[in-house]
């Protein structure tokens, strides 16, 4: 029963959707503060290569190594987005340009590949990959086992994060203030909320989550560092933020939908289904384009609840 194709597709959708969700959740936090991060792709790659390096160099128990690798990936992602934050918030550069610059600078043929070269992590399988777990020994339960009880630790943490982020955004005072900063920084400032601080913190936090998403690629999915291994996941994550209406719960569902699309080709190929692999591989990106076109129509934009000040630098003294 657990080799039923739908069970396999759903459980691998969750597996492949996990890094997308990390990056997208980071995007939600960043965009809710009013900063548009188009550097997610590059940030994920830096996170991925740093995680792989940590995994190769930090000893100790499997748990310790993996945890440290994830933290190193998060730290690297946070550092990259600190640069973005400095460009966008302090220097008030155009956020689209700054984000693209980060992706080009840090991305597939940029800094991440350079680090891979000098750290010699490319094509070396990581010694302690992130593996799926058998939770409560229920992994072989029919249907639900592979879906709910045979996932990676990072997947379970992401479920927790989805809840925490939802409560944070919509139930706490700090979350309210964060949303105010993204909706109307003038209002927030007049009410004594530090727009700059909120934007820095959430941009960096968002980058750290994108970094963890990158680590999932180099430690769980492959699990070896390969140049440019995220293959556009960062862009999908940016689309997911919009697709999920800037809400963690909907974005989680969206991530799994795109995860399913991403895993479809390998799953079907393994089954010997005769479909062009190229078309299947292109599916997530076709979907991304379709979603972005649909939701960026003028009507949708007004209804979806995009933070009103998204992408607009805040300046207090207007003269």
């Amino acid at each position, binding site marked *: 029963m657990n080799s039923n194709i739908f069970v396999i597709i759903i459980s691998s959708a969750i597996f492949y959707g996990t890094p997308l969700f990390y990056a997208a959740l980071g995007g939600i936090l960043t965009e809710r503060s009013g900063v548009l991060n188009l550097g997610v792709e590059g940030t994920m790659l830096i996170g991925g290569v740093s995680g792989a390096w940590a995994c190769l160099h930090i000893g100790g128990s499997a748990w310790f190594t993996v945890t440290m690798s994830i933290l190193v990936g998060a730290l690297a992602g946070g550092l990259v987005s600190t640069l973005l934050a400095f460009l966008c918030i302090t220097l008030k550069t155009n956020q689209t340009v700054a984000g693209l610059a980060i992706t080009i600078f840090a991305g597939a043929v940029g800094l991440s590949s350079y680090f891979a070269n000098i750290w010699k992590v490319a094509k070396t399988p990581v010694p302690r990959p992130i593996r799926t777990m058998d939770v409560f020994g229920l992994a072989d339960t029919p249907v639900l086992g592979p879906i709910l009880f045979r996932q990676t630790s990072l997947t379970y943490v992401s479920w927790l994060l989805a809840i925490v982020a939802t409560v944070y955004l919509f*139930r706490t*005072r700090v979350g309210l*203030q964060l949303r*105010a900063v993204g*909706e*109307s920084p003038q*209002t*927030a400032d*007049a*009410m004594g909320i530090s727009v700059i601080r909120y934007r820095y913190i959430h941009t960096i936090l968002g980058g750290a989550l994108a970094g963890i998403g990158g680590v999932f690629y180099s430690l769980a999915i492959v699990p070896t560092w390969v140049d440019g291994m995220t293959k556009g996941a960062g862009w999908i994550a940016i689309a997911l933020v919009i697709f999920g209406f800037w809400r963690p719960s909907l974005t989680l569902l969206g991530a799994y939908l795109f995860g399913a699309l991403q895993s479809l080709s390998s799953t079907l190929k393994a089954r010997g289904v005769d479909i062009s692999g190229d078309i299947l591989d292109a599916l997530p990106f076709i979907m991304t384009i379709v979603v972005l076109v649909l939701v960026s129509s003028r009507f949708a934009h007004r209804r979806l609840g995009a933070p009103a000040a998204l992408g607009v630098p805040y300046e207090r003294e207007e003269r």
Partner: protein
Amino acid sequence: MSQSAVRMTGIVKRFPGVVANDGVDLEIRAGEVHALLGENGAGKSTLSNILTGLYRPDEGTVEVDGEQRVFSSPRDALEAGIGMVHQHFRLVATFTVAENVVLGESGGSLFMNQDEVATRVRELSDRYGLAVDPSARIWQLSVGEQQRVEILKVLYRGAKVLILDEPTAVLTPIEARSLFATLRAMADEGRSVIFISHKLGEVMSVSDRVTVLRGGRTVGTVNTSETSTRGLASMMVGRSVEFERVVRDNPADTSVTVLRVDEISANDDRGRASLHDISLTVGKGEIVGVAGVAGNGQRELAEVISGMRASTSGRISVGDELVKSGKARSAIARGIAHVPEDRLHTGLAASHSVEDNLALKNYRTSTISKFRLLKRRAIREQATALVERYDVKTPNTTTPVRLLSGGNVQKVLLAREFSALPKVLIAASPTRGLDVGAIEAVRERLVAAANEGVGVLLISEDLDEIMSLADRILVMYEGRILDDVPAEGADRERIGLTMGGSNVQEVAK
């Protein structure tokens, strides 16, 4: 003598190229409504932004309750009990009233208790007559209600000194009256209210004392009971200004209709019907004033007539020639000139030079272009002549328009529109945001145009302006014309009520 709640001494604030405050003194007592009066650019906003911690003064001291304070952010000012009600509301449109009120409140629990906040908001709104539903979202509220939220916000934070920046600009006369009652109630409780305005009538009716600013300096502080509108006006502008009806050299000839609008309906930007079967005529040399609170279809009306917005039904004609719906070029060809309310965005290309802007309307004519190429010298000569004739103060004709002051920007726009020798002029809020000198110049131009036989449709929120310039007054409310009266001897009260939507029959009773 009551103790001073706020004392600002020798405040200086410089911006690149401007000294906005040049040694301002201001003393506010507890329990008074203190008006801060001055023209645009007199330094009122800068001064209040310093008091609320948004700007830091270059020189001078701020004392609150006798203690010297330095505010480095709005939070500091709020903690010292100084709250600001901004002219452009600082509200998050997608949040509820309660959420807006608690925003930025320090301390308190991690989670928000909406019910508790709602109860406290309700208490405050009962006490000061600021009726508003705490669970409503801001975008659902009227402008008047949004202003109440702004006031509740600062009261909730325990402000002892409230600064209101031009609070009546967006209100109907009736809403304004209830605001004044609220301000009085707050002052009676010992709070201080700083009321920023350039409307003399309001200042006279609401304040205890008035401080007048001019050119970034304090002219003086007077007791309201010991001064008059005229006295304040001359303090404000440094000379006396007449507020009487303009006498026309060449009165309107209403036997000849230059503009006829027949049952025009149109939608606003969101696709909702905003004009309902509007009909009006403007005679030769007639100035027709359209009064109303902003947002009742005036903008759409101006845009439809000038061809910038398509109508959904109805006809517009100049003389006996029809204007094609939604075709600005057709409107121009028929002789309609348009002075839009947003002069720097809709009226002019802000970063282009004065001379290019002046050529924007007649660039197709042979005088300044040939074989579709522009004749630069002819453009410059045209600009030099117009700058001279319309008294535009600009370093030269190649200066970008955005660098000019508001009054000169408007003169450039008027020069361009009048140089096309129009039959009809649509002027939307032509004096808004200008200083008194520029206002006079613009009004003179409008009257001069009417004297030459141009039919003028003057859309304005400033009732004084309409009363003094117009021959006839139309009152717009929710996309309809509710009233049409001769301006001579018009009843302000009745117009004010109609602007607020009370219908004419009711008023007559």
